[in-house]
């Protein structure tokens, strides 16, 4: 993908002065990686405590600059477009619903971190170790406890019952990551998932374009009138953590049987010139200091067995033992057909 140079035009206006060169080349000596600056490409939901990455710099002498892109899908598409001249050295945040696309495009370099020994096998979806699992979160139906007097639905099938008519809001799988995960949950659960969605539609399900609209707009929590919403297993602790005025018990709960597992991975981007430093960063992501920061920063769960969950999490949510899953390759292969079929059922 060589392209003609823009140098001629650029010099005309001298904007080159303003453009800072990427990935500054402070030489990483043969002995060490000290002084290197790594660029960590991630999606716009990435968050960590200030001290966490500082710890990494203190330990290794490697500075980390964070480059954010849009959502995970945007980040993957952008990385595919810029393959060979990567935006950064390490990508964080590609999940199992986009994983196959990234692997197929050859975005990552193989690296098996020693820390993987502390990660359960169920998270290690790529046998070739091109990506490393870092965190997971479950997309589940959440309910507003107060408005469901006779109790929440027990499972996905219950959602088509008249009792819960006009109560559920889901996200459009064509534009929303949890929306797509929920569609996968129904596909993993029902052979006739199409019939299930037709029933949901008949039962007055509402489709929002994204999580923000669904949760903050239509769900009771944000002032709406629907008491069931597709959200995350970690939403109840977040409701407590960010409650105002403060509460101790989450006003929401999670339907365990509805949970589809999303695992987020990190990988070394092919073409990086800081391979050793990148390896160090991947290693660091599997250490307790990084893993323990994950829950309250990004409201997802750490992958290593030795991580400790804050009481906020342990009090308000139980991690589902056998969540719904689908093979990443099957997801990538089925996506277009499933979403198109879904749109026909819902809007046809």
């Amino acid at each position, binding site marked *: 993908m060589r392209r003609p140079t823009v140098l001629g035009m650029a010099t005309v206006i001298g904007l080159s002065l303003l453009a*800072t060169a990427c990935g500054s080349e402070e030489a990483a000596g043969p002995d060490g990686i000290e002084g290197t600056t790594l660029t960590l490409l991630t999606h716009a939901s990435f968050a960590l405590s200030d001290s966490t990455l500082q710890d990494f710099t203190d330990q290794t002498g490697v500075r980390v600059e964070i480059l954010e892109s849009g959502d995970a899908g945007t980040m993957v*598409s952008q990385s595919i*477009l810029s393959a060979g001249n990567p935006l950064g050295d390490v990508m964080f945040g590609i999940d199992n619903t986009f994983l196959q696309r990234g692997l197929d495009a050859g975005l990552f370099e193989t690296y098996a971190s020693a820390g993987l020994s502390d990660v359960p096998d169920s998270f290690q979806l790529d046998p070739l170790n091109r990506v490393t699992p870092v965190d997971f979160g479950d997309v589940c139906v959440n309910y507003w406890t107060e408005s469901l007097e006779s109790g929440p639905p027990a499972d996905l099938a219950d959602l088509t019952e008249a009792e819960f008519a006009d109560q559920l809001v889901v996200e459009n799988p*064509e534009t929303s990551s949890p929306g797509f995960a929920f569609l996968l949950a129904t596909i993993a659960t029902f052979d006739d998932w199409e019939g299930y969605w037709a029933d949901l539609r008949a039962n007055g399900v509402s489709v*929002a374009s*994204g999580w923000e*609209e669904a949760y*903050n*707009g239509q769900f009771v929590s944000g*002032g709406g009138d629907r008491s069931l919403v597709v959200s995350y297993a970690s939403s109840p602790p977040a409701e407590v953590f960010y409650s105002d005025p403060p509460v101790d018990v989450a006003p929401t709960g999670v339907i365990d049987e509805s949970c589809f597992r999303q695992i987020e991975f990190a990988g070394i981007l092919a073409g990086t010139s800081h391979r050793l430093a990148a390896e160090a960063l991947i290693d660091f992501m599997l250490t307790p200091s990084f893993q323990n920061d994950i829950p309250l920063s990004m409201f997802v769960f750490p992958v290593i067995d030795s991580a400790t969950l804050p009481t906020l999490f342990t009090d308000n949510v139980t991690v589902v033992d056998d969540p719904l899953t689908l093979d990443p390759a099957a997801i990538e292969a089925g996506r277009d057909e499933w979403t198109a079929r879904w749109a026909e059922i819902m809007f046809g």
Partner: protein
Amino acid sequence: MKTATKSIAAVVPATFVVVFFVYPVVNVLSTGLAGDGLGSLAGLFESPRERRVMWFTVWQAIASTALTLLVALPAAALVAGLSERRRRIVRALVTVPFVLPTVVVAGAFEGVFQRFGLMSGTVRLHHTVWAILLAHVFFNYAVVVRTVGTHWAGLDGRLEEQARLLGAGRWRTFTEVTLPRLKPAIASAASIVFLFSFTSFGVILILGGAGRSTIETDIYRFAVTRGDLTTAASLAVVQIVAVLALISLTTRLERQRPVATRQPRRASLVVGRAWRWANVSLMLILLGTPVAVLVERSLAVGEGYSLRHYGALVHRTRQLPVPALVAVRNSLVFAVVATALAVVVGGLASLVVVHGRRALSRVFDLGLTLPLGTSAVTIGFGILVTLDEPPLDLRTSWMIIPIAHALIGVPFVVRTMVPVLRSIDNSLREAAAVLGAAPARVRREIDLPIGSRGLVVGAGFAFAVSIGEFGATSFLPRRSDSITAPIALFRLLATPGDLLRGQAMALAVVLMVVVAAAVVAIESVRGTADGGL
């Protein structure tokens, strides 16, 4: 001499647009279409779904434009009749919706719908085309009021008085004397509203309901969700061709030479009292209600009210890389840079559009407006894959954000400045020439100062557009500490909890106040620059 000066005015904007728009877009589209591009393009027109999407894109944009003109033109008349100081304030206030992220406005609209029982039942607005049109009017109201109102204020009211004395009624006077002179400004405003509606993203998805798609939302769907870059590129080509066709149509309208305006002794106003009140009320309801809902939500804490959410903006929450106020500061810095770029590029380009040879003038007019009608995905991805090598590796530079914002701001500057420049009596330029001013000097001494009336209004737009920009920014990679306020706001809303929601609303209100103050400040620069012309 003549050619040298002309070429400087032409080279700067041309280089800017070619480097940051044309070349990246051509590059990404040719990459996308490299395989079976033509087949995919043809396939679009054979697919009933895509045909429906294209048709819906066009008609909702036309309907939005017509409705916006209908609602906002009387307001433009109202604004034209105000004193300069009041006009400046109203012009700033109507700009406020510009900076509100769609997700926030959509929330406010839904809040209004809930309160007035419009979520369901016979008069349902929730998830309908009407909600889309209403939101487009809300966002674009300012475009018409500011562009047309400013031009209107410069018309000589004696012509209307003459028409009235000759026996024309109010309506005849308006249609036969005022309207023809307003036509260039109306065409200008209408084309911007159309382009905004044509490439609208959040409004379509959120307010229209999940089933609605336009070319813009489908480009996202194919490029990001499905990873089908070929189809996305085909759609992007269709979008650009459609936009080009439209702009060339409106520029023809704009070109009809307006009657020369002189210093007005009286504003050309034929608006009756009842009209004024009806209009002010409409303006207050349309713009005021969602804003009031936001303010109320930003103050609500539990059952009572407090300023606590505002106080929280100073501190960093875990969901943001920096305190929210730092994001506001970032946005301000980007907006200042973007506005400066847009003013320089757009100002020079306007001169070329007005004074350049016909063909050059057309190319500039089209080329500089096009970014407004091009998908944020196309621009974002284009810059990403093109400006990726030194000396112009912008992918990781903070400059990428103000440059992208300036691309969207330039059309505003051009569209508000060109009608003003065209209305300058040519004898002023000739007088300057015979007094010894070379052509470039004439531009500087006559066109720019008098055109500054349009320039500052355009600059105000460019500033507001930059402060509120979400789409293109979210598609561009950026350093986490250079997060903009709208992105920060979106992130606050991406995690459950009343605390974050309250902060997000407070941040939205801060943004509104900031932009209103900034626009007032920008536009008062002109007050001193040209002696209140």
